């Protein structure tokens, strides 16, 4: 029996888009749970369904969902009580991460990290990182890791919009139901391990498992920045007076990207699915600031990513704090505590425009 659950879509969702669905009954992990034909958002069928846990699936849409009120229908997946599921409750979302900050990573020591995929005959892949390797963000690190792992699995940083933090999730693609990770197969991979939110080697972890602890040195907001305003601090040209009184112009051709001031106002707060007095966003922001020094490898510059409503992808800036002496004090914007605002002055070394 189909189920209806209304979802109000404001501005059109850009592609690709994922919708997290929490189901009230524990679901049987079988083919029906991840069969995209069992799900429909209005007339749209997701392109892929991924099991996240016994109660959560993720629907991935490759086409844009226009603004309006849409009804989510689910029919086919079974609960563990062998009853065909006929009610979908607690559809969480849509929430999309609009602005996120990630500290860069400087790898202090050479390391070889070994991934083992538990196929019938285990398959191993080594990820070698040289000492001194620099990534401007965790996204860059994970992108390189995915390239190394090729098509054996997909490593994702899955944001939690309530906690404002992200967790690693690895989904093997036909390479066995589980995987293991040895962080220091050779050398010292502890900085990579700590940064990605682990405390030790990983042993036979099921595909699709969201890691318990969040990644370090990162902060995510579903509300997004309300202001990212750049100003140039580099002289681009100088007027040069000539002897005859005429003025000429000497244009400076910077050999490196100009450094610009970035006046930023971040917005964050608990989503509608969380309690209004959930202040995890503040704690996550503090964790980012403290991780810059507490976690090996995490340091300035950071990468500020912002995904505008109608864009297909996020813009990124490589930034550092604008002052040596900082006083960062978030403002509570609304009485309920759902919206917080923080003004931050950055200097950007790399801008998207």
């Amino acid at each position: 029996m189909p189920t209806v659950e209304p979802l109000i879509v404001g501005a059109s969702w850009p592609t690709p888009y994922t919708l997290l669905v929490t189901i009230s009954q524990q679901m049987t992990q079988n083919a029906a749970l991840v069969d995209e034909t069992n799900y429909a958002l209005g007339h749209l069928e997701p392109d892929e369904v991924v099991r996240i846990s016994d109660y959560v699936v993720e629907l991935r849409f490759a086409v844009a969902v226009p603004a309006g009120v849409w009804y989510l229908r689910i029919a086919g997946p079974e609960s563990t009580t062998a009853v065909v599921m006929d009610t979908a409750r607690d559809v969480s979302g849509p929430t999309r991460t609009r602005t996120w900050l990630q500290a860069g990573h400087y790898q202090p020591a050479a390391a070889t990290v070994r991934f083992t995929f538990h196929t019938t005959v285990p398959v191993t892949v080594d990820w070698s990182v040289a000492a001194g390797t620099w990534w401007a963000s965790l996204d860059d690190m994970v992108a390189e890791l995915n390239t190394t792992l090729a098509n054996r699995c997909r490593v994702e940083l899955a944001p939690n919009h309530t906690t404002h933090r992200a967790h690693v999730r690895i989904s093997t693609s036909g390479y066995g139901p589980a995987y293991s990770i040895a962080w220091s197969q050779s050398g010292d991979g502890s900085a990579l391990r700590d940064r990605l939110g682990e405390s030790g080697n990983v042993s036979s972890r099921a595909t699709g498992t969201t890691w318990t602890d969040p990644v370090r040195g990162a902060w995510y907001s579903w509300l997004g920045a309300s202001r990212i305003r750049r100003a140039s601090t580099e002289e681009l040209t100088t007027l040069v007076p000539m002897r005859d009184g005429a003025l000429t112009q000497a244009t400076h051709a910077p050999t490196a990207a100009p450094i610009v001031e970035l006046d930023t106002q971040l917005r964050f707060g608990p989503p509608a699915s969380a309690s209004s007095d959930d202040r995890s966003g503040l704690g996550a922001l503090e964790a980012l600031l403290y991780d810059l020094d507490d976690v090996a490898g995490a340091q300035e510059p950071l990468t500020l990513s912002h995904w505008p409503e109608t864009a297909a992808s996020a813009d990124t800036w490589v930034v550092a704090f604008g002052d040596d002496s900082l006083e960062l004090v978030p403002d509570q914007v609304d009485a309920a505590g759902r919206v917080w605002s923080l003004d931050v002055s950055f200097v950007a070394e790399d801008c998207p425009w």
Partner: protein
Amino acid sequence: MRLDAGIRVGPTNDTLSVNIDAGGATTVTLTHGLYLSLAALCEEATTQLAAVDPALSMTPSGSGVALAASGGSTAAWAWPKPALRDALGFTGVLSASALHTSATCPHTFLASLPWSTRRPVGWTLTRQRSRHPSGVTASRTVTRRRRFEVDAVVTAAELAAFRAVMRRLAAGVPGTLYRAADNATPWAYDEWSGQSAVQIAGPSYADAFDGRTLQLLRTTLVLLEYSA
């Protein structure tokens, strides 16, 4: 909301004496140190008293007073060093009784009006930064502290008590901020009404009356989290 100024126990205010059931006075000495709240001072006093008699205790109440108790016995209390008596809120020698209640501790302020803030928590950081010719900036944090802010509202009748506490904080003595007077749980992001060890931020403190009626004092307190 409640604000306690710290109390430093030293050679001039470290002893009291207790006489249980007229059996003779015993001197009790508190460990020297800085106690950030009435509760911390009472806890130390209880620790030392318990070594004399487990039934003896000095406990704080949420209303800012201290309770000197002797269980099933009667105890008389004396103060060889009156500064300790004053710090606890007692005013003189205590005759034999099972329980004595002090006046409000002079280092404690309990607000009668609600305090609020739009900016409850933030951070102050100083960073040492270096810029590499390639443009990559390396930096390290030199100092970092949580910053708390509260908008205090004080009635004219409370003014003396409030300024007594602020005078000590402005002199550099740290204290304890209780966001709920009866909640001694340490503050955290999921324990929003907990208590924090704090000291005043900045080199000075100022307050001003609200309007022409001179009935309400308003001031924004900016406090930094304190750790020894």
